[in-house]
């Protein structure tokens, strides 16, 4: 029950985001909502909705320490993203690359950019037009999880595909 409530709250929040008049909708908060993977209540989501993209398709991929190569799991998530983007051609995306706090600030900006770009190139290899994909790095500036151990770090080393535009939002 509470899981369903959460999912509905997420739909409401994301609906606002998708209504933005700025087609790129540069979201400085780095896509704080959205858990990735199927959650309780996901079956109720409209498959064309941003919430479905975030929760069912999965809007993020994770990386190993100081790496920007895509794991098989990451590639599978990005395949799902590319299929969703093929079905929902109104959307453009910004891929936000992030690093954990174990690194100097400017290096982590470069590392986050490599991660975001790795995701972009994979989407392009799956047929998504490069003109639909912007990348930006936040380095270690926008952690999702705030503990200082690997449990948190592994979730912070991420590339998040943030949707913008879209006529159906």
């Amino acid at each position, binding site marked *: 029950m509470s899981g369903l409530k959460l999912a509905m709250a997420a739909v409401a929040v994301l609906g606002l985001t998708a209504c933005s008049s700025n087609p*790129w909708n*540069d*979201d*400085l*908060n780095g896509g704080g909502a959205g858990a990735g993977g199927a959650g309780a209540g996901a079956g109720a989501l409209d498959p064309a909705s941003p919430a479905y993209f975030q929760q069912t398709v999965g809007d993020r991929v994770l990386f190993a320490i*100081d790496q*920007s190569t895509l794991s098989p799991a990451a590639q599978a998530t990005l395949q799902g993203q590319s299929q969703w983007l093929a079905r929902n051609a109104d959307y453009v995306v910004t891929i936000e690359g992030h690093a954990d*706090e*174990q*690194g*100097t*600030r*400017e*290096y982590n*900006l*470069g*590392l986050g*950019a*490599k991660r*975001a*770009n*790795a995701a*972009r*190139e994979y989407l392009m290899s799956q047929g998504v037009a490069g003109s639909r994909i*912007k*990348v*930006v*790095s*936040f380095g270690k*500036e*926008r*952690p*999702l*999880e*705030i*503990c*200082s151990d690997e449990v948190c770090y592994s979730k912070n080393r991420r590339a998040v595909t943030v949707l913008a535009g879209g006529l159906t939002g």
Partner: protein
Amino acid sequence: MRKILAALLIGASALAGVGAVAAQTGPLRIEIDQGVIEPLPYAVPDFVPETPSAAEHAAQIARVVAADLSGTGLFREVPASAHISKVTGFDNPVKYADWKAVNAQALITGAVSVTGNRLTVRFRGYDVFAEKELESALQFSGTTGGWRRMAHKVADAIYSEITGESGYFDSRVVYVSESGPKNDRRKRLAIMDYDGANVQYLTNSAALVLAPRFSPTGDRVLYTSYESGFPQIHVLDVGQVQRKILSSGDGIMSFAPRFAPDGRTVVYSQTQGGNTDLFSMDIGTGAKTRLTSAPSIETAPSFSPDGSQVVFESDRSGSQQLYVMPASGGEARRISFGQGRYGTPVWSPRGDMIAFTKQNKGRFHIGVMRTDGSEERLLTASFLDEGPTWAPNGRVIMFTRESQGSTGRALLYSVDITGRNLKPVRTPDGASDPAWSPLQR
């Protein structure tokens, strides 16, 4: 005073941490022991107010002089409660015996007058045991609002005469002021005196800002801002608080900007296709030149003071290391070869050393090395130390120290280049990415 000078020079130049000084009671005696410096005892009684409205400033200025000198760790104040003599007139003869009795080896006296909005400070330094006046007697004038700067100038003159080094107290620091929890951190640019006084905010916290740097004359600040949603280089006129964006093109990230010593050229990182390289840009014309072309991350550049070379970090070898190349680009020479990763190199204003951040075995260090990579020495160790900046005299380093965990917070610290005198720098909120200005004029 020549003996004091010699003693402190040995201390200050003890880069390898071998030399040190102990100054003792009685006639000056110098002992070198195991890297522990005995600070030089001095007295700075309240300055003498020479006009009725100068009393408050006369006391405040002496306190700031004392904070500056004692804050170096090279000097130790003999507190007023121990003073035997009271200095009631600036030109009265100094009662050396009274200062010897409390073992004040140096004495600083001063006088302050205020006329309207104008404040004048006169001061003298004395070598108590030699019963001689120092040569630094000077006077400074300015508006009453600038009293702290005048105090810093007095302290710089005394420090300079006794150590033989140029001073650094009359300087400012630009940094990033931080508030809010780790997963919702708000950042804004701030500028303050080197000791944390007179904080002013230069931006609001609507947009993420990172890593500011002063121009060679201290009149402008370069930094990275996410105001557009993408990291771009901004240059801000400190006096006017006017801003300009140095664009590197639509959708291209640019960050890590640093001024060349000429004040007209900027070296920075630009990211295209996920690859980060170094470029230079003429601020006036916007003309860009590529300096590196490697598939690795090249960032954190810093000019040599003569402008001929740039030190930077690159992970082209597989991990972050330091490299030096000509300022116009070309072949780069690796200079870091120790264990771990090296980043954020900053060339000393004296030209003789490079400060850096080192990561090794899960710890972060601030360190210094010669410009050829030799004589590496780590000055600090913690969960997360990063981003050194040099005091204008190349003797002290300020940096960011972040504590770990969900309540982790960034604060500024300073340490001298012998690794002594590690201490926090007072700021109203969290603080990161300090950059020290040149000495003010």
